[in-house]
């Protein structure tokens, strides 16, 4: 039955630096048609309070190897890159050279130049590059997209997006180290909404204006921006704003969420893909029991289908690059407080 064995897709998860790796590994392990290994060579030296490296691999029950080289030498059909943002480029380039299809955690890169180099690398190697934007797969967004395209809102005038979460601190320290993350909440939280806007509007921004501050978590000595507001204009005249702040208090019972409100000439629709929950109070703290579809699973299914069917799964590296470009424009705008043309 060697045919059945070879039919299993070999997936290597490269790095546990991003906390999303945990969910990806769990889902991959649950699939009978996938063989999964993981490596996290920088985990031991990261100083993170959350488990990393072999310890986390053992908790998850995933086969662990000591280095990226070993993981790629295993001959994976596909890799999932979950490293610190700044290391995405090197890992994607190595994986592409090894002939693996790639799912890369967001943001694709910290600079548009890096993202463009990654696109060139996957094109040379003839492998697919998908960016981990799971919110695209939420039923509420799929429905919003359908309603907007069916004209339920008339002509779209404006969009308000929020992606507010708790700041990642001791458990994943690199998020607030600009040398590894590329910045603060701008880098972490602009791109999800930017991806949804890209999909919804099908247009490229003409100008971006952003402001940022570092009031939230100043007492923790955070050096990067923790609050930000980004206003985008589009060729059709549509205006959009993204609140990308790490403004969900650490005392909150949930990590935060994302909302998108689209206003058109016939009214508005607002989606909150992470709002589904049972709420209440325990002896000392509020209780928040989230439920709803596993967006990571839907995203990984799409990725794996692309791998096995030889198609380029969406959202791909091109939208990864466009959203990084928009994020870079916001960073430039925030330096002066004036709009930046794209």
């Amino acid at each position, binding site marked *: 039955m060697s045919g059945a064995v070879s039919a299993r897709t070999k997936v290597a998860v490269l790095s546990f630096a991003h906390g999303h790796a945990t969910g990806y590994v769990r889902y991959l392990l649950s699939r009978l048609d996938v063989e999964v290994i993981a490596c996290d060579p920088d985990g031991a030296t990261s100083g993170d309070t959350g488990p990393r490296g072999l310890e986390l691999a053992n908790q998850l029950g995933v086969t662990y190897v000591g280095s990226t080289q070993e993981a790629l030498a295993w001959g994976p059909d596909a890799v999932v890159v979950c490293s610190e943002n700044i290391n995405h480029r090197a890992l994607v380039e190595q994986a592409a050279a090894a002939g693996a299809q790639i799912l890369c955690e967001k943001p694709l890169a910290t600079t548009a130049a890096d993202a463009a180099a990654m696109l060139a690398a996957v094109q040379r190697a003839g492998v697919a590059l998908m960016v981990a934007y799971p919110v695209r797969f939420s039923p509420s967004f799929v429905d919003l997209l359908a309603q907007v395209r069916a004209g339920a809102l008339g002509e779209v005038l404006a969009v308000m997006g929020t992606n507010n979460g708790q700041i990642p601190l001791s458990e994943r320290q690199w998020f607030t180290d600009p040398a590894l993350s590329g910045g603060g909440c701008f880098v972490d939280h602009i791109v999800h909404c930017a991806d949804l806007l890209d999909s919804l509007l099908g247009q490229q921004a003409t100008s971006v204006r952003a402001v940022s501050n570092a*009031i939230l978590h100043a007492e923790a000595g955070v050096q990067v921006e923790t609050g930000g507001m980004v*206003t985008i204009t589009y060729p059709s005249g549509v205006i959009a704003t993204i609140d990308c702040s790490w403004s969900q208090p650490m005392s909150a019972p949930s990590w935060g969420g994302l909302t998108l409100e689209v206003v058109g000439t016939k009214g*508005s629709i607002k989606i909150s893909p992470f709002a589904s929950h049972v709420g209440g109070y325990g002896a000392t703290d509020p209780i928040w029991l989230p439920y709803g579809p596993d967006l990571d699973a839907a995203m990984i299914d799409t990725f794996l289908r692309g791998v096995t069917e030889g198609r380029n799964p969406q959202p791909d590296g091109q939208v990864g690059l466009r959203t990084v470009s928009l994020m870079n424009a916001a960073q430039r705008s925030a330096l002066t407080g004036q709009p930046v043309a794209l």
Partner: protein
Amino acid sequence: MPRLKVGMIGAGGVSHSHAPHWVALGAQVSVYAVAGAQELAAAYGLTAVPTLPQLFGCSDVIDICTPTLTHRELALGAIGAGKDVLCEKPLGRTVEDAKVIAAAARVAGVQVYPAHVVRFFPEYAAMHEAVAAGAIGAPAVLRFSRGGEGATSDWFFDETASGGIILDQMIHDLDQARWTAGEVTSVFAVQNPPTAGGRIPRNVVAHVTLTHVNGAISHIQGIWGPKGMDFRTSFEVAGGAGVLRFDSCAGGTTVANLAAPQVGTSYLPPASAEESPYLSELREFARAFQGGPRPRVCLDDGIIAVALAQAAQASIATGRAIEFDTSAVLATKEFAL
């Protein structure tokens, strides 16, 4: 204390949000209007008077409920007659109009207040009080939204007359943002569709971003939507130690689930079973007019709110963020009265 004699000017939309509450407070109310005074008087038991001088003659306080462009002349007239004045927002069509009114009030020694009623909405007042008490630490990122079916009277869509959605509607949240997070240093705004040929589109959305002195960021969304769209407001104020949220869609005391669709919405906020914020507002101003404590909103607040709206309009016109300096806005300048 003698009964407060209030002279209302105007019998349009917002006068219906003032008249019954003046009556409820026990004021003796007269009204003068170019149209509709008799009907308003009949509806609420007021006395309609035929001329403005007669209104000034029989009132202690003048309550201006007229279109924006008339505020300057009417306020100056009332101040000239030695009356205290409550003026619907915006205080003036321009910063200059607002400052001329303020200068005249100082010279005459009368009280003039802009009716920024949202400061009296209990959810906004509760948020302001908690933030001021330090409940969420220093405010850092604030979002406000306000929208629903747009105004109906045509003058709202005439840029010259109303100043558009930013001066007429979003001024509420411009004032809230400043009241909550402090003075403003920069203003950036976008609007879609743009104002063309002096006409504000019937359906329009604008986004304004303020930067405050302490670095806090406020975002304000205003919507004039299609007919039948519910009026909704929301805010979220995030600070270093917590967050406060309100959404008029959720958490009300009455939740209806009716077979027939609701029709007949209004540009003004829906009435609720709780005390009207307009009543709370008029009560506080009435006390001030009768020698009581300073109300929560003062004349300078009215000037600065207009200046913020004007800066937002300048930002839309230039595509640039506009620097803002409250002390420069308020700096004394001699106006020809």
